[in-house]
Each structure stands twice: as C-alpha cells, then as structure tokens.
C-alpha cells in the first residue's frame, strides 16, 4: 500500500471513534480538546487503518464502474473458482496488527504512508486447512516528514473458510 496523501480530518475521526464505540470527547469535541492536555482533537489508536480510504488501489472498496464481489441480484457480482476461503477475493483475513506510536496523530495532520513487505510463512491450521501468512510494515509520516505511527500487519489466507469457533 502506498498513500500519497491521507488528510486526517475531524469528522472522519468522529465517525471512526463512534464506530468503535468510543465517546471520548478528545475525538469529537474541539473545545474540550483545546482545554485538555492534548490541546487539540487527536485520533484513536487504530485510526491509521482508515488510510485504506485514501489508497487508490485498495481492493476491498467497490470501484466505480467495476464489478464487485458482494451480492446484488446474485449472491456475488463476480464468479470465481471455489476454495480460497477467507478472502472472498479480497486478500485473506487479518491475523495480527501491531502499532508503535511516535507522537500523537492530530486532526489537521496530513499523512503519507509507505509500505514494505515483510516475512512470509506457512502453518498447518486446525479449522481452515493450510494457513499462509504474510507481513507488511507501513510507516505513516506527517506533513513535516516526522514519523507518527509504524504499523505492522499480518494477513492470512486459508485453503477453505475456517469453521466457526
């Protein structure tokens, strides 16, 4: 993933915080935030995940005018080979996520994200056949070029859908 410009906006932070059930005013009340130790609205710890919105190549967002694998008239808009469960055409499931925070992420910051592939490995799974893992490290820098967050994600693909736990 490479994101040239990820503007961190107040209303996006508000909606993201709502979606994770977090009503902390530091995420939606500029007056409160101004009077707090942080001094301004900040983003919650996992917010950089929303950089997907600004990645032109992100595969799990319907592209205008292009087929989409979700249901419409038919259960899926794209016929594909059976098997390869988990991803549903979308690149597997999320196995791990790690963040290092170098400084607070603030509303008004504009981030760039650069990603590097990491290790890959395989494991025999119990519920979904063979598991194939791959790692990705993303650095998020602000408009001053300063490192704000380092993210390391691990994705997993399964041979078939995992049985429910």
């Amino acid at each position: 993933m490479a994101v040239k410009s990820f503007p961190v906006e107040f209303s996006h932070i508000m909606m993201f915080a709502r979606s994770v059930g977090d009503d902390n005013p530091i995420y939606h009340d500029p007056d409160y935030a101004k009077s707090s130790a942080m001094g301004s609205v900040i983003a919650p710890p996992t917010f950089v995940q929303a950089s997907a919105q600004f990645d032109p190549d992100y595969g799990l967002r319907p592209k205008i005018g292009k087929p989409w694998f979700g249901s419409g008239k038919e259960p899926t808009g794209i016929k594909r080979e059976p098997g390869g469960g988990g991803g549903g055409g979308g690149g597997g499931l999320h196995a791990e996520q790690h963040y290092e925070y170098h400084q607070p992420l603030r509303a008004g910051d504009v981030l760039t994200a650069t990603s590097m592939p990491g290790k890959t490995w395989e494991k025999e799974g119990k519920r979904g056949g063979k598991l194939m893992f791959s790692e990705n490290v993303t650095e998020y820098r602000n408009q001053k070029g300063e490192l704000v967050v380092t993210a390391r994600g691990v994705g997993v693909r399964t041979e078939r859908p995992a049985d429910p736990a």
Partner: protein
Amino acid sequence: MTTTLKTKDLKVGDSFTQRLVEDLKRTQIVQYAGASGDYNPLHTDEIFTTKVAGYPSVFAHGMLTMGMTGKMLTDHVGDGRLTKYGVRFTSQVWPGDTLDATATVQKVFEQDGEKRVEFEVSTKNQNGVEVLKGYAEARVD
C-alpha cells in the same frame, strides 16, 4: 479523558476490565466498514458471506475488535499516552457477541527517561473464548 496513571499506583498483576460491547449489532459492523474503508462483504453482506464464502453469518473486522479494545486502553492510561499496541486475532467475533477487554500490568519500567507500563491485553466473548490477545505499552507519570 484526563486519567493519568502513576507508577506508584501500578503493581504487576493489577488488571483493568471494561465491557466493550453487549450484543454486537450488524449495524455497528457496517459503521466500522464505512469509517475504516474496509468494505469486505464478509463483514456486511449476509447473502455473500453465507451463500458464497460459506460462513454461518457476517463477522466483525478484527480491527473493529482492536479498535474497541483500544478504548479500554485509552480510558485506562489516558489520551495520547500509548507507545505500543499490538494484537493477534485469535477467534472470530460474530453479531450478537458481548465482549470484555482486560489489561494486566506486566512490568513498570523506565525508557528514554520516561516511566512506562507494559500490559498484557485480552478480549473475551460471552463464552469466555479469547478473541484478541496482545500487549500495550504506555507512558505514565
């Protein structure tokens, strides 16, 4: 929140638990899809997920569970204080689940001239199944 943890109040083994969600609704999963930009139909499209992907129902993004668990952490350590937060998604989270998250103090130490605390983090569903397991580190006073 204005909480600030003080090293003198932190003992290894101390824990803090918070209810993250009771009876998780599909609508909240849709909210997370919209905010995060992860529109994978496995999380929001019951027809695709049951008929094509072969799961019993849609299920939550791992990152929704990580985000909700993050609220427990920031409510406990205060705003802008986390230095590290990492998790493994150990089981799926389904609509209807009720989740509780716990942070347990592992060590209190100094780094770069700052006082820090390291937690073990665990989120469990209503059946006691761990759905998320990880760690967090934060600056403390």
